[in-house]
């Protein structure tokens, strides 16, 4: 048995015979042509056909595949490349094949010389596009995948997108290439096909004869050549386990979530429309931790009326029955403007009139929403929360507005829920630091870590230059979360977390350890989040949280999770 190591580029494990895939090489001979104008027309015809082929191969692709297509199409239209080919044909009377090879090779070398993994992958693109044109020009028809008859693991020097897409999908178990990095095309395409891939293994992989049994481990980044039978058995059982734990996660996604020692964590969904409510329920959400209401305001030409809002909230409450739905009141401002609202330009919109600040200044914006929400709460379990709170006075003013709306509705003869829970989002450091005082004013807290991170770290989350300061579980933010949880629990109030951190499987053990009662996340993550929590014990994650609070960076926190919660690490590497 021989072990080759490379870069794990697409997760999963595959076992089967190797298949050596060789690029069809096109032999180019420089020839002098008599009619250079006719030669250029021949080249133009080949260009036209190449564009058609591209459209056929990639036509239905989306996302990353569409990006590859666009890059190739742009190369076929590249004025510099075409001019180089045209002038060589014209001035040196060279044939189109030789003129193209020469012009393209200059770019391949320029891209490869920049020493950047991404640009080396673009050099592969240039080769791919060039080969396509050359094959059309020489009329080549050979199929390099012709020998592929049984499901195999594809070994190659590098694979162009065209190569990869031409392979019969049912015969491909995985990919292993000598060249390439984690962002090369074969990595992207393999992930898209759901096949494991290993790249950058080096030329040793080219020496493995077709038909040799191999195990490809796209999680750990190894290729086992001619492995011992007991090794194969071990790998296959791991593969089966991984598949089982995923399907187990889905099977139990509708059950309540407890740690192994019985500590309950409520798993809720963040949603922003009626359609998402249904999807979240199906994914296993135990309610809605964050109902963003901006969708109603964005899809209208003007402010949505009370009736329109009432119907929308009613239908979402209807989906969840007696389960909680936490509605966040309108959260707009200079950073999230509404076209039809002429809000003043601000020098620092993130520090300006956002969220509850704007709504208190302009009660006309929020009154219809509060009235609609109060009515929709009847018979369900709707709760209200206010965004961007920084002071106790704001909470009192906002509660005053709610009470005024309630009194109006009662006077109008509407039947209302006897009690409506009111909470605030903790997304300013001020709210975090005053949590003990705020806890006396509200029924619950929901920590919005996206804004809380941005304000705590004093780093604009839309500015790429400083984005790393707000990424991941920053210890400064974890400390604020810990103090908010303590303040809330002191007064027997519930506290949830609805930022992106709650959707991060690696951070979830820390959040559970910090004592959050609810985690609210995007629907797609729910089955996996529940599965992760079921592998934990409270002791274990409380110890983890204590250590995380003493960490000095987000990376250190994530390392602690990897060390202390092997189940999570194992699961993440398989998922």
């Amino acid at each position, binding site marked *: 048995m021989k072990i080759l190591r490379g870069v794990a580029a697409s997760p999963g494990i595959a076992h089967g015979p190797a298949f050596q895939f060789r690029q069809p090489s096109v032999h180019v001979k420089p020839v002098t042509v008599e009619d250079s104008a006719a030669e250029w027309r021949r080249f133009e015809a080949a260009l036209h056909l190449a564009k058609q082929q591209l459209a056929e191969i990639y036509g239905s692709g989306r996302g990353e595949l569409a990006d590859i297509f666009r890059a190739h199409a742009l190369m076929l239209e590249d*004025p510099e490349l075409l001019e180089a080919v045209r002038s060589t044909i014209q001035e040196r009377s060279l044939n189109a094949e030789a003129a193209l090879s020469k012009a393209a090779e200059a770019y391949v070398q320029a*891209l490869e010389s*920049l020493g*950047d993994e991404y640009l080396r992958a673009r050099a592969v693109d240039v080769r791919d596009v060039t080969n396509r044109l050359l094959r059309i020009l020489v009329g080549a028809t050979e199929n390099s995948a012709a020998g592929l008859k049984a499901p195999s693991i594809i070994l190659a020097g590098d694979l162009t997108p065209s190569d990869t897409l031409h392979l019969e999908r049912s015969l491909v178990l995985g990919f292993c290439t000598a060249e390439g990095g984690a962002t090369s095309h074969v990595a992207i395409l393999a992930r898209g096909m759901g096949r494991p891939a290993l790249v950058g293994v080096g030329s040793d992989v080219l020496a493995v004869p077709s038909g040799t049994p191999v195990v490809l481990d796209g999680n750990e980044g190894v290729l086992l050549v001619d492995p011992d039978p007991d090794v194969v058995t071990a790998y296959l059982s791991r593969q089966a386990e991984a598949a089982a734990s995923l399907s187990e996660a889905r099977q139990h996604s509708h059950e309540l979530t407890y740690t192994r020692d019985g500590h309950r964590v409520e798993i809720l969904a963040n949603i922003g429309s009626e359609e998402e409510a249904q999807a979240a329920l199906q994914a296993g959400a135990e309610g809605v931790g964050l109902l963003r209401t901006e969708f109603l305001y964005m899809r209208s030409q003007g402010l949505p009326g009370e009736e329109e809002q009432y119907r929308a909230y009613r239908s979402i409450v209807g989906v969840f029955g007696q389960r909680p739905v936490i509605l966040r009141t309108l959260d707009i401002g200079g950073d999230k403007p509404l076209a039809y609202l002429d809000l003043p330009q601000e020098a620092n919109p993130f520090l300006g009139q956002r969220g509850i600040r704007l709504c208190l200044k302009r009660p006309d914006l929020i009154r219809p929403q509060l009235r609609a929400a109060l009515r929709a709460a009847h018979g369900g379990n709707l709760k209200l929360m206010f965004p961007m709170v920084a002071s106790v006075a704001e909470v009192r003013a906002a509660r005053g507005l709610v009470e005024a709306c309630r009194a109006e509705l009662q006077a109008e003869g509407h039947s209302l829920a006897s009690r409506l829970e009111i909470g605030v989002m903790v997304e300013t450091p001020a709210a975090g630091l005053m949590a003990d005082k705020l806890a006396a004013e509200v029924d619950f807290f929901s920590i919005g870590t996206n804004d809380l991170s941005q304000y705590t770290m004093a780093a604009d989350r*839309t500015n790429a230059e400083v984005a790393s300061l707000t990424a991941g579980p920053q210890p400064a933010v974890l400390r604020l979360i810990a103090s908010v949880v303590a303040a809330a629990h002191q007064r027997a109030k519930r506290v949830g977390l609805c930022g992106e951190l709650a959707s991060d499987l690696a951070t979830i053990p820390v959040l559970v350890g910090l004592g959050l009662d609810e985690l609210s996340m995007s629907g797609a993550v729910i089955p996996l989040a529940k599965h992760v929590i079921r592998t934990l014990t409270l002791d274990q994650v409380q110890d983890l949280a204590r250590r995380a609070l003493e960490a000095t960076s987000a990376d250190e926190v994530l390392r602690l999770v990897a060390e202390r919660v092997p189940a999570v690490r194992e699961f993440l590497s398989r998922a």
Partner: protein
Amino acid sequence: MPDLIVTVNHKVGLHARPAALFVQTAAKFKCSIKVTVGERTANAKSILSVLTLGAGQGAVLAIHAEGEDADQALAALGALVRSNFGEEG
């Protein structure tokens, strides 16, 4: 001979989708457009030429346009780069 200086904030730099959008935008104009990063200069309408600039995140682009619609071209390219290639917010 209008010129424009603008910084690429996009996380992948002037590569991939941003590079494609940049070249497609430049190609809409008749004027000749050059883009310089450090000591390298490229034809803004050529994807291969733009890629060989190796302009990563934070690269400062000096864009130079000449021709009848040069002002519009610079305005359009400037807006594209500043909007983070349409991925704002």
